């Protein structure tokens, strides 16, 4: 009996120690799937991309590119030596950076922006007197930090980034074909290519052009992150040299070209009306009065203290695909009056979903929530697109073109949706029936139509065009994202349905542009 007890204690002891060891192994920092993206290795080089239709540039050579050194010049030879000296003493950190950037320059800058959006997507904390401070672009590091990267702000930031990348890439491809500078490894066989380097021309480095443009846009949109952005830019430039893909002058000329292209977008962004989209108290009162004059119950902030609506004048911002008259003409018909039977039916359905949440619907609500502290719905669709694009072997310029179409569509979706929201100023379900509890945070702006649905309709439409084999997936994802807002009890079904239709129409504008930009010839 005594022997048995002795053994029993030992067995338990051994089991416990093993258990703890196994546990230790299970407590790991999860790896991000973006860390496993393959190196970019384009199927098609798209060497004719210099003739694709730019967005703001009047022609691909509107911005001048410095004329390259001759490859026989001593300065060029010295640049080749620089590559070899980097390659002779690569550190593990260098190799990590090479692997990171090899997945694609357009892609990685898109991810960097998503991260900054998530970091800055926090509504300001109230002042002591119950008002709210407004972030100030000229003082971004003082609280409240600039920007509050909410969904409309983010949609615009993604669009400017992608559009500038695209025009910069077109310009790069134009000059590459013009200067016909061969790759460093062609001039010097001792130079190793540590990642797949397309067998086209090297001057200017399209990666540096895209990075120069990206960094300039990011610094505009996230002015408090200058040092972080600059560090990423230097990393990318060094990687181009270390990996044997480009020489110093190819990278420097590229960065400069990219910056100059981006300046066109920056000038446009400064005048697109976004800075006025916060509005002022008399604007907010006007929106409310307009609903009251129509005999409707106006939207009211459900936050305490009441927070002004999120960027209520964002509908007046100048987009890329639609002009302001198209925004107004594209407004859907008014939703049923809040006093009507039809509206009551809508409200009752929201109450049903609030009272009858299932675990699966809750999962859907949270998967698509994309609320405070996230990269927002446009960021989510960028993540979806990039997860697919990494397997499609696009060239950098095609990456840029595809994401530009996606993000211009979602920016215009935000403009149209915010126009409708603030034109009709429809109350959220919980405002009209306090019994309606929500499964996710209640957004602080009017209900009709759903931003998620408009973004998702636009995104699924353009992505289906860009990658037809997944059309069915994109459409069902968009429908799920849209319905998640009804399941979450923060939107009426009509918000999701009308929003989806609007989004699909805007997405179609991007498809039409895509069909005519020269990339699909």
């Amino acid at each position: 009996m005594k022997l048995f007890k002795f053994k029993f204690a030992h067995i338990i002891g051994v089991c416990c120690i093993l258990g703890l060891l196994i546990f230790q192994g299970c407590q790991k920092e999860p790896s991000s799937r973006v860390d496993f993206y393959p190196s970019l290795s384009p199927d098609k080089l798209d060497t004719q991309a210099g003739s694709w239709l730019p967005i703001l540039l009047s022609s691909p050579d509107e911005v001048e590119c410095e004329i390259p050194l001759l490859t026989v010049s001593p300065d060029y030879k010295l640049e080749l030596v620089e590559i070899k000296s980097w390659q002779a003493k690569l550190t593990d950190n260098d190799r990590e950076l090479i692997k990171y950037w090899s997945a694609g320059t357009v892609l990685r800058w898109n991810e960097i922006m998503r991260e900054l959006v998530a970091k800055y997507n926090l509504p300001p904390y109230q002042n002591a007197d119950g008002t709210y401070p407004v972030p100030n672009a000229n003082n971004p590091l003082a609280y409240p930090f600039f920007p509050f990267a909410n969904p409309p702000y983010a949609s615009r930031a993604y669009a400017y980034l992608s559009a500038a990348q695209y025009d910069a890439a077109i310009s790069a491809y134009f000059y590459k074909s013009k200067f016909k500078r061969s790759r460093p490894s062609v001039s010097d066989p001792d130079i190793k290519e540590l990642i797949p380097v397309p067998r086209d021309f090297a001057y200017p480095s399209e990666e540096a052009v895209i990075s120069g443009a990206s960094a300039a846009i990011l610094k505009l949109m996230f002015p408090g992150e200058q040092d972080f952005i600059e560090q990423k830019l230097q990393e990318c430039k060094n990687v181009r040299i270390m990996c044997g893909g480009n020489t110093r002058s190819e990278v420097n000329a590229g960065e400069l070209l990219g910056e100059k292209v981006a300046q066109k977008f920056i000038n446009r962004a400064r005048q697109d009306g976004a800075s006025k989209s916060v509005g002022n108290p008399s604007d907010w009162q006007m929106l409310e009065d307009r609903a009251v004059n129509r005999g409707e119950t106006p939207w009211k902030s459900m936050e305490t203290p009441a927070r002004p609506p999120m960027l209520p004048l964002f509908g007046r911002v100048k987009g890329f695909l639609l002009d302001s008259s198209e925004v107004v003409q594209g407004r859907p018909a008014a939703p049923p009056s809040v006093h009507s039977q039809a509206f009551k039916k809508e409200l009752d359905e929201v109450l049903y979903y609030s009272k009858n949440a299932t675990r699966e619907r809750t999962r859907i609500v949270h998967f698509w929530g994309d609320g405070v502290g996230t990269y927002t719905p446009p960021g989510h669709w960028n993540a979806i697109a990039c997860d697919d694009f990494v397997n499609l072997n696009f060239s950098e310029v095609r990456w840029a073109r595809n994401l530009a179409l996606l993000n211009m569509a979602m920016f215009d979706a935000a403009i149209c949706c915010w126009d409708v929201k603030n034109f009709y100023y429809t109350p959220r379900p919980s405002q009209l029936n306090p019994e309606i509890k929500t499964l996710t945070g209640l957004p602080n702006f009017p209900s009709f139509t759903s931003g998620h649905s408009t973004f998702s309709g636009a995104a699924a439409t353009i992505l289906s065009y860009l990658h037809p084999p997944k059309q069915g997936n994109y459409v069902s994802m968009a429908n799920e994202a849209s319905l998640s807002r009804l399941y979450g009890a923060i939107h009426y079904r009509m918000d999701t349905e009308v929003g989806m239709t609007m989004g699909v129409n805007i997405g179609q504008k991007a498809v039409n542009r895509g069909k005519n930009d020269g990339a699909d010839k």
Partner: protein
Amino acid sequence: MKWKGLIYSALFLPISLLSQTESDGLFMAKNNFCGGFVAGFSQWNHYWEGNFYRSNENIGTVSSNSIMLMGNYGINGKTNLIFTLPYIQNQASAGTLIGQQGLQDLNVFLKRELYAINFKGWLTSFNGTLGLGLPTTNYVADYLPLSIGMKSQTASAKMMIDVQKKQFFITASAFGMLRRNIEIDRDAYYTTKMIYSNSVQMPSVTGYNIRTGWRKDPDHYIEVILDGMNTIGGFDIRRNDMPFPSNNMDAIKVGLNLKWGIPGINGLSAMAMAMQTVAGRNVGMTQSVAAGAVYQFEISSPKKTNKK
């Protein structure tokens, strides 16, 4: 019988349950079983966002009701097997966020007396406890502060010293807990950087618990408690952000606990407890009360023994 009443300070840190249970120096006799329920209520209307102490009118007062089933079986007089299983219901008094409820985690502890000595009338024992926590339902962890728990599988170890002279006693313990990664409903999230995964690394937790007071016997005692919990790693809630399961949650609580055998009914005892969070980080400043009853009986042997 050795149940300290149990309080849920749920709300932000249901893990602190552990530090409230099996933290005493008492053991069940062999083949004795003690089972019962504890009902708890806790609430807070201020919390620490990182180190910033604030209220939030968009959640108002967050409150939690719970009922916990618990049991303790004496494998022998020096080894006890303990389990707890709470049902929790959380809600916010303001704002629109819907409350959550459900069966939370099954916690199982094996408590063992390692060494005991009578040193000049001071009865001293050293005990060790190993614990496992297993979520029993597919509840939502990523919905703080209204989630009913973190949904993490946990493994913990605790060392304890218990000293008694006449009717005065003091018990001190320290624990460490490993928590397995959890899976959330999103496939990307931001902590201090973007992570593209649905898996969340849960930082480890350490803590201590000191309780002292008057103990007539295992069924009659009253004690004051000082309880500390410290998450090793994790990150702070940013200004006006939502909390997240892998936040750096720390708390110090004080409380009072009482157990009293009901006269006339052999084996039945009542328990009551009150706790107050006095300092914290990324947690609510919780007040909690709990009350319960446990019944102890022998499963086979008619022989009954009590330690001490």
